[in-house]
């Protein structure tokens, strides 16, 4: 027998060595360790316009960051902060002094077209015919210019200045050496920076975080508000890293302690952990090979799942410890094989979802389980185990507990309870698919972000209208036609605000009608302005000439200018042959009314699309939640049929621990008003896997003390791992932990309660001919 088992064991060793070598090479070559939460989300299949729009709109938020600084000595503090950031080599450009902003060539870009650029108010004033105020203001600024290029011939009415006034309603203050912003009566220095590298680069994140910590250490009185993707990414990576280490370590120490108490042999414990290591190596190699990288959350979630893998080792070693020389692997194999098949099935259904993150987790967990199982079956029988009286005493005490619990839940009562649970969960259970679930940013950072976005009118481009047209003129005209609706939504308080290219560059036809209005204004008032100012009337002709020669402002010209640079993100240009596109971003709170009106507008016009990325992702999360529920329900039905082939009428005892635990969790959440989310469901998969293992082993070895000992140990060790997850501050991990905590406790209790009542003399401490009796 030894000879027969040694060859596969040797082969398995070679496979694992190869896996280890492959993973090491991959990791040393810098295989990507992904920390992006969005990488877990499915790539939505949509028009290329939407994809490009998403990238373009979020780019400034990704590549730049904003700091608001409050300090008693703002000059000194902001200088020190700038120096710290520059020394840390994290920024390629830093702006916080008025001189840092590129001198905008306003006159050059807008000057020639100024007669064609009229704000809404000025248009209305000229249309009303009452232009005397405009004449008075013109006279005052001709003698004492208060704006750019207010010249009797070039711009007697200060049109350029009025246009800029209607455009730039900025609250920035450049009174001194610093650019500041008044917020709630406090003056904050505004510092904007462009990252020198990638926001997802953990090295850059660390340098930035350290730099800011250094600054805050040196300036305890200063307060900082942060905005930018890099901070959120750093927050997420930091939290995930620290939780992986605490949860992983806590789980390991807890499991080791318990095993030491039970087996009292370091060698046995080593053989229990060996499958975990082997499973981990196998899973890592396959995942790296398949996905060319691995997500941090996969490691966090996956390494906890491998905790299920210890099941097999526990069952085997418990049996060997208690049976001694009478142990036969053959008797264990059906249970072990069924345990593996059911658990792998429960996880692998996730691989059918379109969520790359879930697929990765499924592959990782599945491979981990297979690797651990192979190690248990191929290697563990080759090791020696020590039979200790302590282990046997403990197994008997546990068996006593089982004896007191068993038989208390009969099939009829179980059916009634299941029906009650199903009806409660069916009526009361709510779902939650909001994006908050996958948010890893701290409350502090979210508060900072909200303040900066509100005060600076910075948006992350998550809600917008994508507008398409045959050419630029058609685009601007279409965007302009939306202004009345957007304005009225804003005035009625349904919409916070919007940013549109047509506000910067009016369409040609609008520029033409504006030019007509300017001509009207000149005809009505310019003679009198010149007369009052004592200027020669002959200037009138020259002023009109400037009007005639005025070229329209083009979108390209504007976007290429320094001032139009920040508007580039709103313009896609050509997205298809004969089709151009651009965006109107919506910001500052959009209520249902606004959403409805814009959605119905988008439905009625094929050239307009309302895109809400947050809602899109929520919809995807919801869809996945429903899909997983359906797949798992289907898998459960299939498994029940499969198990019925072997267990016949005892099948309900196999299914009850897992099914009952899931129903317990769902009913509890329904009664407590906890809405069910995707991550609860993922955790229920784990409960399902461990529950099925428990049900199978108790049916395979109904009189064996080792089976109940192994089940108890397995559940306690998993509870330790996941009990820690429930205390995680990362919502995803918390939901998983909470669910597993309740679910696994239920599995243990139900496994005991549904067992058949046995006469006391028929029980044995170990496997023998009485199995299946």
């Amino acid at each position, binding site marked *: 027998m030894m000879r027969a088992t040694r060859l596969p064991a040797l082969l398995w060793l070679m496979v694992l060595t190869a896996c280890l070598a492959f993973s090491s090479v991959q990791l040393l070559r810098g295989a990507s360790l992904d920390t992006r939460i969005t990488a877990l989300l499915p790539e939505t299949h949509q028009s290329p316009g939407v994809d490009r729009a998403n990238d373009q709109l979020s780019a400034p938020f990704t590549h730049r960051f904003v700091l608001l600084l409050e300090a008693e000595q703002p000059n000194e503090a902001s200088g020190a902060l700038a120096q710290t950031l520059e020394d840390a080599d994290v920024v390629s450009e830093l702006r916080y002094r*008025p001189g840092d902003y590129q001198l905008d060539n*306003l006159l050059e870009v807008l000057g020639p077209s100024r007669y064609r650029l009229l704000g809404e108010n000025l248009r209305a004033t000229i249309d009303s015919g009452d232009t005397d105020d405009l004449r008075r203001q013109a*006279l005052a600024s001709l*003698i*004492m210019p208060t704006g750019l290029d207010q010249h009797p*011939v070039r711009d007697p009415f200060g049109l350029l200045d009025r246009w800029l006034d209607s455009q730039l309603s900025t609250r920035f203050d450049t*009174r001194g050496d610093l650019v500041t912003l*008044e917020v709630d009566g406090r003056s904050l220095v505004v510092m904007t920076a462009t990252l020198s590298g990638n926001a997802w680069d953990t090295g850059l994140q660390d340098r930035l975080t350290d730099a800011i910590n250094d600054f805050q250490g040196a300036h305890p009185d200063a307060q900082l508000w942060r905005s930018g993707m890099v901070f959120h990414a750093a927050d997420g990576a930091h939290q995930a890293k620290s939780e992986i280490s605490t949860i992983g370590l806590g789980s390991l120490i807890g499991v080791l302690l318990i095993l030491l108490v039970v087996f009292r042999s370091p060698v046995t414990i080593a053989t229990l952990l060996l499958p975990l290591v082997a499973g981990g190596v196998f899973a890592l190699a396959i995942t790296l090979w398949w996905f060319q990288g691995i997500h941090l959350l996969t490691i966090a979630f996956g390494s906890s799942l491998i905790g299920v893998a210890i099941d097999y080792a526990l069952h085997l070693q418990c049996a060997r410890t208690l049976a001694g020389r009478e142990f036969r692997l053959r008797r264990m194999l059906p249970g072990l094989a069924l345990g593996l098949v059911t658990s792998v099935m429960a996880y692998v259904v996730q691989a059918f979802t379109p969520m790359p993150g879930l697929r990765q987790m499924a592959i990782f967990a599945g491979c981990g389980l297979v690797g651990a199982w192979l190690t248990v079956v191929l290697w563990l029988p080759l090791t020696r185990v020590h039979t200790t009286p302590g282990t046997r005493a403990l197994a008997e005490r546990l068996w006593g507990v089982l004896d007191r619990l068993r038989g208390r839940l009969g099939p009829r009562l179980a059916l009634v309870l299941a029906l009650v649970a199903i009806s409660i969960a069916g009526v009361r259970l709510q779902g939650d698919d909001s994006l908050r679930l996958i948010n890893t940013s701290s409350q502090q950072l979210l508060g900072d972000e909200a303040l900066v976005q509100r005060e600076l009118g910075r948006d992350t481009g998550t809600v917008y209208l994508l507008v398409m047209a045959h050419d630029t003129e058609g685009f601007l005209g279409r965007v302009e036609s939306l202004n009345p609706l957007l304005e009225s939504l804003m005035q009625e308080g349904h919409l916070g605000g919007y940013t549109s290219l047509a506000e910067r560059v009016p369409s040609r036809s609008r520029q033409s009608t504006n030019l007509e209005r300017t001509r009207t204004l000149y005809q009505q008032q310019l003679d009198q302005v010149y007369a009052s100012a004592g*200027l*020669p009337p002959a200037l009138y002709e020259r002023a009109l000439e400037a009007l005639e020669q005025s070229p329209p402002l083009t979108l390209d010209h504007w976007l290429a200018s320094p001032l139009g640079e920040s508007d580039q993100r709103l313009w896609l240009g050509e997205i298809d042959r004969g089709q151009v596109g651009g965006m109107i971003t919506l910001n500052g709170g959009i209520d249902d009314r606004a959403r409805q009106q814009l959605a119905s507008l988008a439905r009625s016009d094929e050239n307009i699309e309302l895109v809400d990325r947050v809602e899109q992702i929520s919809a995807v999360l919801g869809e996945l939640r429903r899909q997983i529920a359906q797949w798992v329900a289907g898998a459960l039905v299939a498994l029940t049929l499969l198990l019925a082939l072997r267990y016949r009428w005892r099948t309900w005892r196999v299914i009850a621990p897992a099914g009952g635990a899931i129903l317990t969790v769902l009913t509890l959440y329904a009664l407590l008003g906890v809405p069910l989310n995707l991550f609860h469901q993922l955790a229920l998969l784990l409960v399902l896997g461990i529950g099925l293992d428990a049900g199978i082993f108790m049916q395979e070895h109904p009189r064996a003390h080792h089976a109940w000992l192994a089940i108890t140990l397995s559940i306690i060790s998993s509870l330790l791992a996941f009990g820690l997850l429930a205390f995680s501050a990362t919502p995803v991990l918390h939901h998983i932990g909470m669910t597993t905590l309740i679910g696994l406790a239920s599995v243990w209790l139900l496994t005991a309660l549904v067992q058949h009542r046995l006469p006391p003399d028929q029980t044995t401490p170990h496997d023998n001919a009485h199995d299946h009796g």
Partner: protein
Amino acid sequence: MSCRKRLRSLSLVLATLPLWLAALPAHAMSLESLADHLAAQGDVAGRFEQTRYLADLDTQIDGRGRYRFEQGNRVTWSLESPVEETMELSEAGIRRNGERLDDDPAGVATLIMQLLNGQLSTLADRFEVTLEGNQQAWHATLVPRQQGLAEYLDSIDMRGDNRLEQINMAMADGDRLNIHLLPPEEDPGTADTSSRQAP
């Protein structure tokens, strides 16, 4: 941040240059004592005359009105001709014809108030200041330090005796803006003689 704002700030600062003098940085000789000397005049009110010379048209526009400076509190600059317009600067901000100017504003008002309170660092950072003469006949030249401002403004000249008398502003394109502050007790009727010497 834009040059437009710098220019606007500049013209508002210009309108209130009388106030500045009380707070010019003590870079050169007796500027500090001159500032004290001028500040000792207390609240001042009177008439002003101004001329904007347009180089490309080789013509000029004249204006006149009243100024009032309440030491440390408020500045009123009332244009009476060719059109009536009042600018008022105080701690609360800037008002134009009684209406609050929301635009750039609070920044400039605060700047002015800072200057009045003797916080000189801000002004010294923006302009290179040279002072010649003595308290009875002095002449100050301000040259902008910032490139952005220098593209529009060459320099500001100020002269006076125991009060500020004349401000001449030379723009980069050759335009000039000259302001003559008449003595508080002087009869407004004599204004013509002084305006003629302007450009």
